[in-house]
């Protein structure tokens, strides 16, 4: 559906002539004339208005009754009075009604001071109450969930939260119970409201009925500072507003950016700020001394790191991840390429993707905006689970499908949360996203598909159905892909884009979801083995990708590793190889906030990493939007700016001097990356700029020649074994485990099975099992999922314990813990029996000898 292009009209409000887009709701249009109409239930983000609270009653000439401004679209020549006698009386009446059952406990209420009900009572209320009867009472405060407290006495029943639950994440958990004046908000089944996006209702609530438990009584609005920031816990890079008191972040609110987050936050982004101020966080440098990590001063740690890196020289490799900024990426590249003479640096898991592929993927003509997901004719979700990989897009896709009729097509290995919303969904064999893309491209071009479909593990009928759906949907199509689809053959995705003609469409294109928050920015800043800053030719050729780095570290060809906010043992696949690689490396220098397994065992020097509120610099959104991070809170403990640490190391190793301030460094970055040219920090301001939209952006050539598909062999079923697929849960992050409020969500390994497979293997739901690929084992609990594709077991990656990263696949066997223990017990028993028998024969022999 194309974006609406409303025409401009003029209407009169309180005697002012105001211009507004036609059909805008009066409550919004009034703001264009600097007139505020009070509202409670109206919230445009929640979809069509419901007119429930009646606060926005205004007088419109020519209409006999007062009208609700929230549901009246402005028309040309409309004459509106918001402060006429009739309107004023009605507004005062509604305020009086609302206050009837509202306790006046503002001094203890967390909303006090930033409460719309307070403000509107002050501005539009009558100033006195005639209600002397007893108010209604509830038990309070109650836990709506471990994160949210509900105070039903304060609720004014605007039912924003209920609408949110039904219209935005569509979980239908919140409902109004009872009727009339007895109504109250609760969950349908009485269970706590635990959902990935539950925290948004706290911000939606216009009174203090829903409050954040972690923020409970922490500060009052006049004691805090607001700081605009960006969440760097996932690639969504939602714009946030931080509540800071005494240099501590106490709360995270959304900072509505329609092109990024649409005004919502996930609970990870909203509550994981707590991880900034916990004891587990690394806040001073550490070195390994006598096999044990201990805290040291900066000088000592820097000297240690510099010495080790000097020894490592060109045998040094580097990996970056997490929320590392573009500037840090740039300095890491300089450190490796210019100072140490190595080009082995990467910011993503797997084998290196070639430079022409990266350049073709970054082509501005192929770039889709986030808001295109909402207005395109169709969206193809390819090999990613938005809810886990870039949560906020889950809401955006639902919005598009619900309100604008966007066709939602899903091609993933694992069942998706969006399946119920989708027009078509197909499942392919684990890890075969590239093959699926080839097959789909072939189907769209009318070429034979059998080989690719077989390699992807899908039925040709399903494939053609999906291709037909894509073809019939319309011209503007967005492909939302997980970057792991590039692993098999990066050309596949480009072929699919070509088959759909995405380069010619304004409202369509590609939108890639990287594995780490600033994956795109790090790549563009040069943290990729075969490209320098700006995807240009690197200063040094012959760099290796992450997987090859692991192999060479393990074999001893590389000796030192620099880790910028990444722990390959935790974050990358084949943890076992990385374990060996890190054990063999003589030097592992890391920037980290938490001691993850790989660092705990193998790091030689650890510098404390910054969290995003402490950082200064820029990061790049997956759709090319360069966004600016500003310092919102002081560094905790001894933490120093990471870019300064990198600059210091470069300087001590004799490299070229780094610009002295963060601002100058950002300017250097904009100079080094050609397509960032023209950006300035001031220009980025609070909203960022998309470089694919800049005039200077087209420095990437269109020249890309499609190669023959590289198809892997089809995965065959094996008797008694299942294919293994992995996924990363939204909650799999050290920040979640470290935040007291979120800790209850820390995932534990679970194996997702289809009912048929579980039956064949005689496994029950929640049974403890051991999953083995022949060499390595992972313990998990069985979870039966109706939508799980048969023949594949899905396990969670990136868990501190029992992460699926150790499994190599493609096949695994699943046995119950009980049977494994029984086997072990039987083995021991047999061994004992054998030993006993031996002793007996010996004894007998001895006896015989004696006789």
């Amino acid at each position: 559906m194309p974006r609406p292009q409303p025409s401009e009209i003029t209407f009169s409000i309180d005697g002012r002539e105001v211009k507004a887009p036609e059909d805008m709701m009066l409550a919004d249009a009034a703001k264009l004339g600097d007139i505020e109409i009070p509202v409670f239930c109206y919230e445009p983000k929640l979809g069509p208005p419901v007119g429930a609270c009646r606060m926005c009653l205004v007088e419109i000439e020519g209409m006999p009754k007062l009208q609700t401004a929230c549901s009246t679209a402005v028309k040309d020549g409309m004459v509106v009075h918001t402060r006429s006698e009739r309107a004023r009386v009605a507004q005062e009446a509604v305020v009086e009604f609302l206050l009837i059952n509202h306790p006046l406990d503002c001094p203890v209420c967390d909303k006090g001071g930033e409460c719309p009900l307070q403000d509107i009572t002050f501005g539009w209320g009558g100033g006195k109450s005639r209600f002397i009867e007893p108010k209604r009472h509830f038990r309070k405060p109650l836990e709506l969930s471990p994160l949210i407290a509900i105070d039903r006495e304060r609720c004014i029943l605007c039912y924003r939260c209920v609408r949110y639950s039904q219209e935005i994440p569509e979980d239908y958990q919140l409902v109004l119970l009872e009727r009339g004046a007895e109504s109250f908000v609760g969950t349908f089944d009485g269970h706590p409201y635990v959902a990935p996006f539950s925290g948004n209702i706290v911000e939606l609530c216009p009174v203090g009925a829903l409050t954040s438990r972690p923020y409970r009584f922490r500060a009052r609005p006049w004691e805090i500072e607001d700081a605009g920031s960006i969440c760097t816990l996932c690639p969504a890079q939602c714009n946030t507003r931080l509540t800071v008191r005494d240099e501590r972040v106490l709360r995270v609110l959304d900072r509505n950016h329609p092109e990024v987050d649409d005004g919502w936050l996930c609970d990870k982004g909203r509550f994981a700020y707590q991880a900034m101020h916990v004891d587990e966080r690394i806040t001073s440098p550490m070195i390994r001394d006598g096999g044990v990590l201990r805290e040291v001063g900066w000088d000592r740690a820097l000297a240690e790191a510099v010495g080790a890196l000097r020894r490592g020289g060109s045998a040094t490799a580097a990996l970056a991840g997490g929320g590392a900024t573009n500037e840090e990426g740039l300095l890491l590249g300089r450190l490796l390429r210019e100072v140490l003479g190595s080009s082995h640096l990467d910011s993503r898991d797997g084998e290196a993707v070639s430079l022409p592929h990266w350049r073709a993927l970054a082509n501005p003509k192929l770039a889709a905006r986030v808001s295109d997901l909402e207005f395109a004719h169709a969206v193809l979700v390819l090999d990613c689970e938005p809810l886990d990989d870039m949560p906020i897009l889950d809401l955006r896709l639902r919005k598009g499908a619900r309100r604008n009729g966007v066709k939602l097509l899903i091609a993933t290995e694992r069942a998706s949360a969006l399946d119920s919303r989708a027009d078509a969904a197909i499942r392919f064999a684990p890890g075969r996203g590239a093959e699926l893309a080839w097959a789909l491209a072939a189907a769209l071009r009318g070429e034979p598909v059998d080989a690719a479909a077989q390699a992807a593990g899908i039925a040709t009928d399903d494939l053609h159905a999906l291709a037909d759906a894509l073809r019939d949907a319309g011209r503007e199509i967005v492909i939302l892909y997980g970057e792991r689809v590039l692993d098999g053959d990066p050309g596949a995705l480009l072929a699919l884009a070509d088959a759909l003609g995405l380069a010619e469409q304004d409202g369509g294109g590609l939108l890639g979801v990287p594995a780490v928050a600033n994956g795109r920015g790090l790549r563009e800043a040069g943290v990729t083995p075969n490209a320098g800053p700006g995807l240009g030719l690197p200063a040094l050729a012959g760099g290796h990708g992450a997987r090859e780095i692991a192999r060479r570290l393990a074999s001893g060809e590389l000796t030192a590793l620099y880790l910028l906010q990444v722990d390959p043992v935790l974050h990358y696949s084949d943890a076992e190889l990385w374990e060996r690689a890190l054990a063999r490396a003589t030097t592992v220098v890391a920037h980290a906030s938490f001691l993850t397994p790989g660092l705990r065992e193998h790091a030689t020097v650890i510098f404390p990493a910054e969290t995003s509120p402490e950082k200064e610099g820029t990061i790049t959104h997956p759709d090319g939007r360069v966004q600016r991070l500003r310092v919102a809170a002081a560094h905790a403990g001894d933490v120093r700016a990471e870019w300064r640490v990198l600059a210091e190391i470069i300087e001590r190793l004799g490299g070229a001097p780094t610009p002295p301030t963060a601002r100058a460094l950002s300017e250097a970055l904009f100079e080094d990356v050609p397509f960032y040219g023209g950006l300035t920090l001031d220009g980025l301001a609070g909203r960022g700029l998309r470089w694919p939209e800049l005039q200077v952006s087209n420095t990437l050539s269109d020249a890309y020649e499609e190669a023959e598909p590289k198809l892997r062999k089809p995965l065959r079923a094996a008797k008694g074994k299942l294919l293994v697929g992995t996924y990363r849960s939204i909650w799999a992050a050290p920040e979640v485990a470290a935040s007291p409020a979120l800790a209850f969500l820390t995932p534990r390994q679970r194996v997702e099975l289809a009912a048929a497979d579980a039956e064949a293997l005689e496994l029950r739901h929640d049974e403890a099992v051991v999953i083995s690929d022949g060499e390595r084992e992972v313990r998990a609990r069985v979870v039966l999922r109706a939508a799980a594709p048969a023949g594949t077991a899905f396990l969670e990656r990136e868990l501190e314990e029992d992460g699926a990263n150790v499994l190599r696949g493609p096949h695994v066997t699943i046995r119950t813990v009980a049977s494994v223990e029984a086997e072990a017990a039987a083995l021991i028993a047999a061994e004992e029996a054998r030993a006993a028998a031996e002793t007996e024969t010996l004894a007998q022999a001895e006896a015989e000898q004696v006789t």
Partner: protein
Amino acid sequence: MTQALLFKDIDEPNLADIAVYERRGGYEQLRKVLSMSQDAVLSELDASGLRGRGGAGFPAGRKASFLPKGDMDKYLVCNADESEPGTFKDRELMQKCPHALIEGIVIAARAGGINRAFIYIRGEYEEQAQILDRAIAQAYDAGYLGERILGSDVSVSLVLHRGAGAYICGEETGLLDSLEGKRGNPRLKPPFPAIEGLYGGPTLINNVETLMTMPQILRMGGNKYAELGVSGSSGTKIVSVSGHVQRPGNYEIELGIPSREIIYGLAGGPPPGRSVKLWFPGGSSAPVLTAEDLDVPYDFDSLAKAGSMLGSGAIIVVDDSTPVLDVALKTARFYRHESCGKCTPCREGTNWTVKMLERIEAGEATPMDLDIMASVQEQIIGNCLCVLGDAMAMPIGSMIAKFRGEFEKHMQRAQLTGASA
């Protein structure tokens, strides 16, 4: 005085059976409309001047003409959630003559170009629902419902849905929500149901009596029907008379006869020795009238002029043996209980009004509270999402205006004896 159209054969034994109904000339109008064009049916309805019998009194023909033309699924919903206190006409009609309703539904469906029809009946009407179930099955068997009715190209499916007993589900949009399986809350209008109603499709909603009148209109011809009654209120109306009268019940009258004739003539007036103190002319939502208004002609416009409304045509008579406070409290408690809670003035206003009336009853109120109560009613009227709030505020407001003296006397008496109350 009475004029029997709907009630012509109402006491015929076994009229609920299709054979008896057909013998008495039933389903003839259905056959007739199948051969008429949609516009011809609409113009007959328009000419009849039939106004909706459910409460709002909107011209039925015009309502049907609002439905957009086109090929989409369109819906007809028969509102049989007869929940207005004092109203029991639809119950008798459905119980005794269900086939007339089915015939009316097909006619209305033809007029609106509708292919799917629902009857939303209140849960308490289980007996009537069973009778309708049987009648619908008979009509399907006889080919009066379903695909290609009687070989024509008209198709109408009909489903009977039992509500769960909430007053608000008699409000048309609340009814639609309930029918869709949601909590029965009224929706914001516009969009009106004729444009976006059930499942987002164009929907025509009519009362049982309105639909049952349609076969009569076609039988008589719209212009002929319009001759009955008075200008602006044509035809006959079934009036449910209840309360302090000697012969309560349903009476079919020609609109425009004096109200006294209904209350005293047909229903026999209050028991001997008592006199009418106040009466609700159109269900409990209508502002009350007093004995002085008994000569007002019983039709839509005259009652509106007298400051009340005809509503669903349910006359509740209260004689001088009942304190007005009891009537007010009973009415207000009903509306507090039935308020859905979606919009503020209704939810809080009904609640507050009951609390104030309870204080008056307990002797804890002063005449100033009457002013507050009157102003609360004014704050409700016209400010709500649907008409439920107004439905309480109008009668309560009229009672305070017309019986202020009695309220004040009660306060004084209750204050004296109050401590015990």
